[in-house]
């Protein structure tokens, strides 16, 4: 089964792979350059952006996932609006982010023009004298719209921290 997965990933149409990787590169550039309005254009109206906590649980202990963030388009827009007020003190001065994206694994997900795109990220960030980073995996659903535009429809972010070392997640991972 794993050998088939390897072949599936390797055998993906070159154009699709190139375009999706370019999508991720450009998206990161927009976020790191704080061009949030342009980044918004890359999201579908049904976007869901979710970050669960990491929970290592022993034995049979059932419970709902605890989340760190669970945004729809409205909430993402409001976050951007808030940054634009010039009074979002936690981001004045703004956090410098650097998204490093790698290990991109693209699979067709059964939808005609949708792809499950997993990638690893290392988000290095700095604000004033603080330097920090978070690594993790993004599980994206990227769709091609009617006019051949790629858009992010879903992002589920598994971060590699049990206890978050950032004072606040005041930026987009």
């Amino acid at each position, binding site marked *: 089964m794993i050998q088939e997965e390897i072949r599936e990933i390797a055998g993906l149409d070159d154009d699709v792979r190139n375009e999706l990787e370019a999508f991720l590169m450009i998206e990161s550039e927009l976020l790191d350059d704080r061009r949030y309005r342009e980044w918004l254009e890359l999201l579908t109206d049904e976007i869901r952006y979710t*970050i669960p*906590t990491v929970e290592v649980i022993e034995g049979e202990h059932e*419970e709902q996932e605890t989340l760190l*963030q669970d945004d729809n388009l409205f909430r993402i827009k409001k976050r951007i609006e808030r940054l634009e*007020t010039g009074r979002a003190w936690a981001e004045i001065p703004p956090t410098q982010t650097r998204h490093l994206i790698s290990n991109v694994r693209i699979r067709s997900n059964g939808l005609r023009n949708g792809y499950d795109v997993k990638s690893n990220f290392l988000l290095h960030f700095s604000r004033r004298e603080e330097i920090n980073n978070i690594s993790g995996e993004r599980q994206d659903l990227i769709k091609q719209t009617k006019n051949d535009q790629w858009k992010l429809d879903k992002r589920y972010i598994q971060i590699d921290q049990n206890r978050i070392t950032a004072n*606040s997640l*005041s930026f987009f991972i």
Partner: protein
Amino acid sequence: MIHMAITPSVEEELEDSKHSMESGTVPDEIFNSESIFELEKETIFKKSWIFLAHESEIPNPGDYVLRHICDDGLIVVRDENEKVRVLSNSCRHQGMEVCRTEKGNTTHFRCPYHGWTYNNSGDLVGVPLEPQAYGQDGLEKEDWRLIEAPKYDTYKGMIFACLTPDGESLETFLGDFTFYLDSYIDRSPNGMEVRGPQRRIVDGNWKLPTINSMGDSYHVAITHHSVAEIGAFGSGDDMGADNDEGGTFSSNQRRPGYEVIAGAGALTFSPSGTAFSNYPEVLRENARQHFSENTFELFFDGNRRPTNCAFFPNTNLNNTSIVYDDGKVAPYTYLRTIRPLGPDKAEVLSWHVVEKDAPESYKERSYQAYLFSFGSSGIVEQDDVENFRGITDVVKGSLNKDLNYQIGMEQEEFEEWEHPGTARKVPLSEANARHYFAQYFDYLRSHSE
């Protein structure tokens, strides 16, 4: 015994039992000092009741969570007899952690070092190679149970522990504050549950969030200006975003709320009406069954309802609401506790609190509203954290000064307050913060006892 130097201003504060209440000031070094932190650990965290977990986190026998009082690792577990226990997470043999997972379910805790095994009540039940190690008579296992926290108790589902065996009971410690605490964690005959915790590090002094939550109505319009400006505080009763000309505060700041002090805690009955906005009718009915008529009216029907609160030394709750989607406001309750890791660093645990039998759709939107406002990605809490971080950073310096908590020193009590504790009917006050400091310095002074 204090071995490290305390500055003269703190020494004076410690000697004078009424200093900060009468002057309305506190020395700034209490927010970033190694020596004061040591004193806090020896007094406050040794003697006070500390909130650890909510019973809904460990509903079934064998369920546990791993929590701390400062450096003391504690297993909060529901044993096979359904009794909640708080056990020191250290093997009686040679000290190794017997529990290394943040949460789970187990019948037994096994030490990975020499295999000593305890049941989930903390009894030592298994010792490998016992005859070879301890002879034919073996080891007197009753003498080697896991150490239990000297005191632990539960109030309405909130599990607390205390590292000192004597002293007051939990209910005595909380005192009259329990009346108000019920509006956050006991609103329904069918009980409440928490979702969480989120855990994160904040580079700030552990006391700052609690002092803020206890009754800082003054900061809202400025610290959370950006949230008001984007219309997230809701229509009508908004906190108000001042225009660029500066000038006066929003209309809410001019309208008096009730600042209430009771027992170990204090809270604000805010005139902004954010508590229980759009609260589902079915939950209102639950609450109506659950509280006396007067109390129900006080918490739910007044135009001033219990919003932010805190109790000594490090736990806060809030009933509030936010616009979480286009034209949609949802209320939420959160619970937050702050564990100090040092004078300038703390671990914050944050939970959402909700009625167990609330409709699923309500639980979901209330949870989304909470995530959007508080916690790691909360747009409200972010700007508070920036203040906590900044204060802690600068007061580490040597240009020490007194901090001003003087608002409302001349305020009179609101005589018509019919409920527990004392109230002030005022737009602004720092009396609640002074109530925190009164308890705080009492505990620090107790080091010489």
